[in-house]
């Protein structure tokens, strides 16, 4: 630390303190003003004496995610005297750590886990009905995706408290769409195709991952399927891929592919972000990250791109609501905890306005609200470009859409079965009929055939 005086150090420390203190303040003020709540009496959870809580959650998306989560937790400890330890682990480690915790009955009391975890470990979790019903009554109800992911399949039993979801929307360059003659992205397939063709003609093609990209590749494949009314399984969980809707989706992919930038077959998860940031593509599906990174960059070139970027909910096609799912995070309290009431009280505290509102606002659209009332916060208006992400969890589409949520459907996604089906047809390496048969066979290795 040579060359840095004591005063400098003190100053930077003070700035950091002010910075940390101001973030929640902004959110808190906004929160008081604009979250419409109903006057509902909170359930009284009788906190066990000597309670302590350990929480495990996925690593932060953006810095405020972790800062504010810790801040809120600290506030809880100050108000209740219950010590809470929060561990942030990398995304890849969430799956095995959740599995070990559930199977050994030891470790964290609460895990904020991904998507299918509550269904897989349903019998190891404390029912959350009282808390979920209270929150729903106070905050205008849960979004559809929360109801799907967090209640035991086919019943009204709450297994977890959905804290939020990370959704995808169309990210596009305003000026290039205008150049092609569009003010907004058409919501029908034919219109979308025509727009892709025009964009390609003026040298600004669209681009979607067709390679082995876990998030983006599967997201695009699911959009193709769902916007055509097709699905991987039927309501009973039996593979229903081999349908005329899937064939239509495959034919559409084949028509769309020539108007996409070349090389999408080898795209991984970061590829569309890179291509958009370098100005190679005019449109893709993504979370808020492309925009967020460009907007907060010091590079004037990226800032210009951010100014020219906008978002829109993914084209509907034949679907009634956004045919894109979200990555939902669910807070689960395990039966092995000695302090179930303390756990519930902690989760209630975290979901209430003074805590949840600043956290959601601080994450700037990376996480979308699971409770409807939080969609009316003013911060969503502060940057209208974030608006399409408000409704990320307002969709009936989830990862194993129409069938029960299970580990098997995650296996299908992890093996890129749908992505490869679309990729092989789009490039002319297989006929739609042959590709759908092969994909159905692959999916049936894990799901019911």
């Amino acid at each position: 630390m040579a060359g840095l005086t004591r005063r400098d150090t003190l100053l930077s420390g003070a700035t950091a303190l002010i910075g940390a203190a101001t973030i929640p303040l902004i959110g808190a003020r906004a929160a008081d003003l604009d979250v419409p709540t109903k006057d509902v009496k909170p359930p009284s959870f009788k906190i066990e004496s000597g309670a302590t809580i350990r929480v495990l959650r996925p690593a932060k998306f953006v810095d405020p995610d972790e800062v504010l989560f810790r801040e809120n937790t600290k506030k809880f400890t100050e108000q209740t005297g219950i010590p809470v330890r929060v561990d942030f682990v990398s995304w890849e480690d969430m799956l095995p750590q959740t599995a070990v915790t559930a199977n050994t009955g030891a470790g964290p009391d609460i895990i904020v886990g991904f998507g299918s975890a509550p269904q897989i470990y349903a019998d190891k979790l404390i029912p959350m009905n009282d808390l979920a019903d209270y929150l729903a009554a106070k905050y205008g109800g849960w979004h559809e995706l929360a109801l799907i992911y967090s209640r035991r399949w086919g019943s009204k039993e709450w297994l977890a408290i959905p804290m939020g979801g990370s959704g995808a929307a169309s990210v596009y360059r305003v000026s290039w769409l205008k150049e092609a003659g569009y003010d907004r992205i058409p919501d029908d397939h034919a219109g979308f195709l025509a727009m892709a063709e025009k964009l390609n003609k003026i040298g600004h093609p669209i681009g979607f991952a067709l390679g082995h990209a876990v998030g983006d590749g599967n997201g695009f494949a699911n959009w193709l399927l769902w916007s055509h009314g097709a699905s991987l399984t039927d309501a009973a969980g039996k593979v229903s891929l081999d349908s005329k809707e899937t064939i239509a989706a495959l034919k559409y992919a084949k028509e769309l592919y020539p108007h996409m930038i070349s090389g999408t077959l080898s795209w991984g998860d970061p590829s569309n972000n890179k291509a958009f940031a370098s100005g190679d593509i005019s449109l893709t599906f993504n979370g808020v990250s492309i925009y967020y990174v460009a907007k907060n960059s010091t590079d004037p070139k990226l800032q210009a791109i951010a100014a020219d970027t906008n978002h829109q909910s993914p084209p509907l096609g034949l679907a009634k609501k956004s045919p894109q799912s979200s990555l939902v995070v669910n807070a689960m309290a395990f039966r092995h905890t000695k302090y179930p009431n303390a756990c519930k009280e902690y989760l209630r505290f975290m979901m209430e306005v003074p805590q949840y509102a600043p956290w959601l606002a601080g994450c700037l659209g990376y996480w979308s609200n699971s409770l409807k009332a939080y969609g009316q916060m003013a911060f969503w208006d502060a940057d209208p470009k974030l608006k399409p992400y408000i409704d990320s969890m307002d969709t009936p589409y989830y990862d194993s859409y129409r069938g029960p949520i299970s580990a098997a459907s995650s296996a299908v996604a992890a093996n890129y079965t749908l992505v490869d089906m679309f990729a092989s047809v789009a490039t002319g390496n297989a006929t739609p009929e042959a590709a759908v048969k092969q994909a159905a066979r692959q999916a049936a290795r894990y799901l019911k055939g």
Partner: protein
Amino acid sequence: MDATTAETSLQWVPRRQHSWLGRLFDSKPFLVTLCMLPTAGLLLIFLTYPLGLGLWLSLTDTTIGQPGVYIGLENFESLFDDPVFWNAVWYTVFYTAIATAGKFLLGLWLALLLNHHLPFKAFIRAIVLLPWIVPTVLSSIAWWWIYDPQFSIISYVVVNVLHLRDHYFDFLGSPWPARWSLIVANIWRGIPFVAITLLAGLQTISPSLYEAALLDGATGWQKFRRITVPLLMPILSVALTLSVLFTFSDFQLVYAITRGGPFNSTHLMATLAFQRAIPGSQLGEGAAIAVSMIPFLLVATLVCFFGVGRRKWQQGSDND
């Protein structure tokens, strides 16, 4: 104490009464067992246990999250009907064969060049080792950028600098180019190992043999064919065995560059095993794929050892 006792005490009395511990340590079988115990323990814990666990998992339907039950050979039966698995088997064999051949041809050539007297010999030899020294994950990421459809340096040079093409190469976008691209990256990484090993072998060959051949009027090819190759054989077969093993079980290059895409055309058995077991949570099935590699590795090792190096030097005696 009287005189008689003092007298007898001077007589030599063989000490027959060993303690049981002493007798135990005198026994050779016991001593041998005892000395081998630490090694055996290490092997058991770090080699046999993981291998045994892998074998056991392959016979169960364990997933991440659910302890499985014994299902016999069901995993293998279902893999038998899986075209993705057979494609991975085929590409693993192809990848190993072509990449190993490439590494040895280029590696031998490089070794022969380095064997000459060059200025800055030590420095050049050190540089040659670089691809081998750099952690594979790093070099994999470098290759991933080199093959990127939008940001490839090769495409940039050819299209934007030399103007030889009007659009970028799509290295990884279709099966065959992707397969060859991965093989090239693997050869690049493997050459130093082969070159340096063979260089060590070349330097053990006595120059007097070449001088004698020169006096007899042998051509360069004859010298290579009759002196270099036979004397290089021992080290060649060891290097070949190791290289085949490394290549066959390669994971990082493929996983970092293509993840097995496009449409599973570049999956190796190792990457497929990982994909099915960890992201796909099907631990049993992944283990079955990994176990399926063992027979191939055994055959490859045996072929290398007995096929290439079928000479008596392996038993420690002279050739003739």
